[in-house]
């Protein structure tokens, strides 16, 4: 992997997440019925930051859960080694909720598809909206980002790497080039 | 018959050992060292081969009549001569049981029909091997039975065993016992110990053998009748016999190639070809038995050739029958175990598979001397061969050696003056 560009700093990331938080409140006319689900791994710290911004603005405590989509992936049979399964942690009722599904990057849409299926096994939310830090295009499924921090056109040979304090010890977003084999 | 000249072989001249000599087998089937013809004979260079009196097996399950799907006369006689044997003692557990003179007669005549080797039948001690009523041992002896045994169905009733031995002794029959206490053995599949526990299979305790050896020693001493214990598997069992011999008890015993070559750990992969009765014991037992061979304390060797159909050995370990097919491989396996690995010279033990059992049965010994009828085998100690279903002549392919390479193989066998192995035109 070769680093090509640093496209977001910590300040950029927080500015985007703050705006997303405000858009979520605006779009849903407040926080009534709202719930946030972070997709493992990097959707979790990003989701937590969005929750904090929302709670601060609205003086609320929006329910937060973690979703692990490994067992719902459609590519298990093409992977050379089995991905580690972590627990999904949702300790509130999803029925009738306005669920905000948070992830770092929206790419093919397959992760979102898996998450949607998993959420449906938990209950019947009133709606599901997607919030991502980066939308990089190349969708393979009819899925969109309701809230996006940045829309960045990319080549398929490129990889967007979102780093967070919790998972990587720092906040930043990089574009790297896959090494040619 | 063709004439043969064998050159550069190491010929056994017991008890002196091997000596390099040329010899010929003449039209009359006799051996000569002095009058080797200068033409009209097939000349074979057998450098690196040993020439030994043909082998004798005291313990063969020929399975026929009655279980021809496991083994038959055609295959067992082929396996025998391919392994260097020209005499086999058949065990009585045929169907019907060899407990009467008609079956003995049938086995001898049927054996002769193939003209490859001689089958010396053992009769049973009791009718149907049932351990209840004495069999017609006298009439069986008249038809040619050489010994009696309830092999595999050891008589549990001590009083009956004593009567059977006394009756057999009346006719001078050789008495052989497979020492096993049925109550102690019941439901067991392999040696009782770590391996059996690990595999979750009920064990056969060593004491099931030793308790009967001890009983037989006492009977033999009490009645002053010789008894032979076949396939001794344990150190303790052999020690009991050694001690009894010192006290003058007329007891003899044999050991099999597999008990000398393998231990219980061979069973760890559930390979049913290692399922044998008596079972493979511990390494300590095996080493002790080898020590006895080294010290010349074993009376003879015996194969306990026990062929089974392939599908029978494909049953789970607890359902598969006991036994290993042995005639084809016995000599090669022992050469590997005793001579290559244990460095016991060939001439020190090979007689245990030849004249030693002949002597026990008071039969004429075979020798490689001037004018003797040709009864010998040529063992090429450098010939490597792979044991496969195809290279085995026995119908029973149940040997743990399948797929293994062995060094050393019989290349010629002569029986009563004629070449019987390799097969083909004589």
């Amino acid at each position: 992997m070769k680093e090509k560009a640093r496209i977001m700093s910590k300040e950029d990331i927080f500015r985007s997440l703050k705006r997303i938080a405000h858009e979520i409140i605006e779009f849903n006319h407040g926080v009534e019925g709202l719930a946030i689900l972070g997709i493992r791994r990097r959707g979790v710290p990003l989701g937590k930051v969005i929750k904090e911004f929302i709670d601060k603005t609205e003086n609320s405590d929006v329910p937060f859960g973690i979703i692990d989509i490994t067992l719902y992936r459609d590519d298990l049979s093409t992977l050379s080694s089995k991905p580690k399964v972590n627990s999904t942690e949702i300790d509130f009722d999803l029925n009738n909720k306005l669920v905000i599904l948070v992830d770092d990057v929206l790419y093919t849409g397959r992760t979102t598809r898996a998450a949607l299926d998993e959420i449906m096994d938990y209950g019947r939310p009133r709606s599901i909206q997607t919030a991502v830090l980066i939308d990089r295009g190349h969708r393979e499924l009819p899925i969109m980002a309701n809230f996006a921090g940045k829309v960045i056109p990319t080549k398929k040979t490129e990889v967007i790497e979102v780093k967070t304090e919790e998972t990587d010890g720092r906040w930043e977003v990089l574009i790297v080039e896959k090494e040619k084999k | 018959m063709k004439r043969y000249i064998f050159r550069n072989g190491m010929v056994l001249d017991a008890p002196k050992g091997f000596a390099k000599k040329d010899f010929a087998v003449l039209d009359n089937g006799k051996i000569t060292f002095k009058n080797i013809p200068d033409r009209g004979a097939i000349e074979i260079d057998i450098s690196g081969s040993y020439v030994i009196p043909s082998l004798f097996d005291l313990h063969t399950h020929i399975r026929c009549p009655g279980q021809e799907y496991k083994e038959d006369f055609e295959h067992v006689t082929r396996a025998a001569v391919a392994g260097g044997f020209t005499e086999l003692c058949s065990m009585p557990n045929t169907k019907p049981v060899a407990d009467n003179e008609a079956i003995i007669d049938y086995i001898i005549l049927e054996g002769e029909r193939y003209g490859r080797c001689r089958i010396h039948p053992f009769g049973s001690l009791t009718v149907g091997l049932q351990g209840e009523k004495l069999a017609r041992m006298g009439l069986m002896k008249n038809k040619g039975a050489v010994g009696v045994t309830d092999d595999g169905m050891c008589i549990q009733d001590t009083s009956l065993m004593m009567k059977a031995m006394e009756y057999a002794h009346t006719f001078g029959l050789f008495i052989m016992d497979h020492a096993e206490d049925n109550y102690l053995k019941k439901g067991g599949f392999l040696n009782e110990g770590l391996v059996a526990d690990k595999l979750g299979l009920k064990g056969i305790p060593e004491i099931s053998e030793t308790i009967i050896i001890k009983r037989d020693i006492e009977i033999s001493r009490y009645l002053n009748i010789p008894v032979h214990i076949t396939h001794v598997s344990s150190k303790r069992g052999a020690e009991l016999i050694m001690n009894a011999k010192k006290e003058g008890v007329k007891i003899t015993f044999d050991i099999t190639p597999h008990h000398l070559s393998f231990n219980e750990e061979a069973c760890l992969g559930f390979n049913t070809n290692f399922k044998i009765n008596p079972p493979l014991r511990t390494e300590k037992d095996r080493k002790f038995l080898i020590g006895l061979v080294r010290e010349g304390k074993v009376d003879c060797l015996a194969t306990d050739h026990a062929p089974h159909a392939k599908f029978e050995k494909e049953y789970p370990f607890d359902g598969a029958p006991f036994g290993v097919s042995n005639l084809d491989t016995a000599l090669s396996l022992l050469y590997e175990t005793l001579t290559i690995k244990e460095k016991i010279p060939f001439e020190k033990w090979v007689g245990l598979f030849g004249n030693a059992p002949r002597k026990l049965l008071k039969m004429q010994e075979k020798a490689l001397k001037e004018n003797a009828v040709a009864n010998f085998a040529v063992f090429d100690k450098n010939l490597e061969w792979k044991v496969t279903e195809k290279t085995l002549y026995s119908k029973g392919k149940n040997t743990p050696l399948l797929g293994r390479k062995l060094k050393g193989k019989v290349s010629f066998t002569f029986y009563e003056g004629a070449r019987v192995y390799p097969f083909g035109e004589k």
Partner: protein
Amino acid sequence: MRKHLITVDDLSKSEFMSILEQGKAFKEILTRPIKKIPTLRGKTIGLLFFEPSTRTKLSFELAAKRMSADIVNFTASSSSLKKDESIKDTVMTLDAMKIDIYVVRHSSPGVPYIVADHIRGSVINAGDGAHSHPTQAILDVYTIWERFGTLKGLNITIVGDIKYSRVVRSDIDAFLKLGAHVTICTPRTLLPFSVSSLGVKVNFSVKEAIKNADVIMGLRMQKERQDSGLIPDEVEYNHFFGLKEEILGSLNPKVLVMHPGPINRGIEIDGEVADSEFSVINEQVTNGLATRMSIFYHLVEA
């Protein structure tokens, strides 16, 4: 690469730990309103039960269904439950139907190896005679590990019919592998011959054997033991080797009482003990389901 689970030894310590750790995620699935995940969609699991079993079969079947696998059942009728039936022929027929994972139970030790030799998929041993029962060991370990966080240094006492128990063999292997100390308590006639080389302590007194125990595991007394003359009768057995109500007073509050089931109340364990606050016997059943799902996930081939 295809992988089998025939004995506990087929798993490295890290694979073992991975099954336990990820078992948590599967246990969570069992608490959801819709207890089903699509992970094994399109995979086929064959349940080959040559020996009757209710609990283990149910657990495997439910684990497979929770993961959306298709299931085919092969249950040998009692008439063909002979030891000499041709496993090879049966299994080759099934293999022609392209099954991904075979769950095998048989009364003869070693049968899972015969199955593995004649198929293309993976084999999970669901109990072969007195040889091995690795999934039971995994669920037992999971139950202890979930409570204590580790097995290292724990004192585990196994009380009961040990001689021909596949559960004990597998449990002892697993407990020792993960660093626990094991004590077994049973009359000498029910001890394995090679007990001295197993690496466990033996104590003939239940009271002493459980004194410092963190885990007490009872084992089912198999009724045929009396017929084979290994113990006199159930009354005497319960008196000396049963987990009796009296022990409850002396236990420290963190002790787990376990039993692989089904239990004989009043023989190897009194009802008061099986139903006490120490008992995790029902938890073991739930954990069996979760760990078997985790095992399927680890074994299924891409």
